[in-house]
């Protein structure tokens, strides 16, 4: 019935869209012509690129005051989400049975819960700030809100299915997961894959200029 459809055909369809879409976007970025830098490079771009990928993981000195909220809530959300995604017992089981063929030790229940509480608190705070902060509100597009809400709904339906006993609740979670995967490659959610690319690009440019930024 519905669960079989969602877990079967719909899941394969979304997975294909997700994989093909992400690859297509990455290849597309790769093939963008970059402006030729006529200046004589003062240094190599590679160390700059690598450094920037790491250093952009926290706020630069001058901006720290205004960005504390984002730093804290952002890490709460992302760490929580990744622990959930990769170490939640039902997810490990799903990955083992349906994707990779092997699994790993799932997080104990309490860690799963702490992680999801962090993730929920984080995404709510981030999205509310997006709505309430005058500048954040002005620079936010439909895409930002859609991505935040969709991710939240996926998390919420997953959390509602925690008793693992009702096919209907499972199917709803799976359905929202499918929606998210189809939406993913064509939205801001691509930042999960593109953030190293953009940081490396900036870092390399700075490296060639001999600037550490």
């Amino acid at each position, binding site marked *: 019935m519905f669960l079989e459809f969602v877990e079967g055909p719909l899941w394969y369809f979304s997975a294909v869209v997700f994989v093909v879409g992400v690859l297509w976007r990455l290849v597309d970025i790769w093939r963008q012509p970059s402006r030729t830098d006529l200046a004589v490079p003062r240094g190599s771009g590679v160390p700059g690129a690598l450094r920037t990928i790491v250093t952009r993981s926290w706020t630069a000195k001058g901006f720290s005051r205004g960005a504390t909220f984002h730093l804290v809530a952002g890490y709460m959300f992302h760490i929580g989400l990744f622990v959930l995604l990769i170490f939640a017992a039902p997810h490990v089981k799903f990955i083992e049975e349906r994707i990779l063929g092997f699994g790993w030790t799932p997080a104990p*229940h309490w860690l799963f819960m702490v992680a999801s509480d962090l993730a929920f608190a984080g995404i709510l705070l981030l999205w509310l700030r997006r709505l309430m902060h005058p500048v954040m509100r002005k620079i936010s597009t439909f895409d930002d809100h859609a991505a935040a809400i969709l991710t939240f709904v996926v998390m919420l339906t997953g959390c509602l299915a*925690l008793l693992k006993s009702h096919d209907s609740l499972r199917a709803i979670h799976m359905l929202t997961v499918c929606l998210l995967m189809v939406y993913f490659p064509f939205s801001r959610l691509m930042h999960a894959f593109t953030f190293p690319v953009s940081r490396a690009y900036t870092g390399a440019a700075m490296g060639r200029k001999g600037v550490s930024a």
Partner: protein
Amino acid sequence: MARMKFLCDTERCIECNGCVTACKNEHEVPWGINRRRVVTINDGEKGERSLSVACMHCSDAPCMAVCPVDCFFQTADGVVLHDKDICIGCGYCFYACPFGAPQFPTGGVFGSRGKMDKCTFCAGGPGEANSAEQVRKYGRNRLAEGKLPICAEMCATKALLAGDGDVVADIFRQRMAYRGAAGLGTGWGVAYDKGLRKASGLDGKAAGKED
């Protein structure tokens, strides 16, 4: 119509835990779940007594009244059963039950108890009797096979009685009469020591014989 009841005769129970073991074995009860347990009062002291206790299949069951999803039902025999497909593992039945019968599979971190499990009077649960699904969820359905609960069947001293409440009560009444006037006729000495029974003039008072 039979009204199923358990009764544990404290003068006979020797805390062998045979009933507990029989239950776990018969129903493949998971670790950590005790559908039946034996509690000993004043362990190792004078007046020590043991009682085997499980769900008592209350006539007006508190668990049934309190369950937020209303998943309990009572069979025509008065056995209180519940539907694990409906149960949400909230634990309210455990708070309400006088006897601590409802059990939960996990320790309940973050209140995430699994589905409740309890003694079924060996009567399974909803669904087809002794179907693979019923056996997996609730254990064997002996009542459907015309048998009585395994715990009482296994009891070596016949301390634990199970069956139609009238019959159980009759047996117990006979025992009490045999041991002497109610209230005076209890005690291991009276129950098992023939000499003491004779000396107290109580021997042979009861006409009936024990089962």
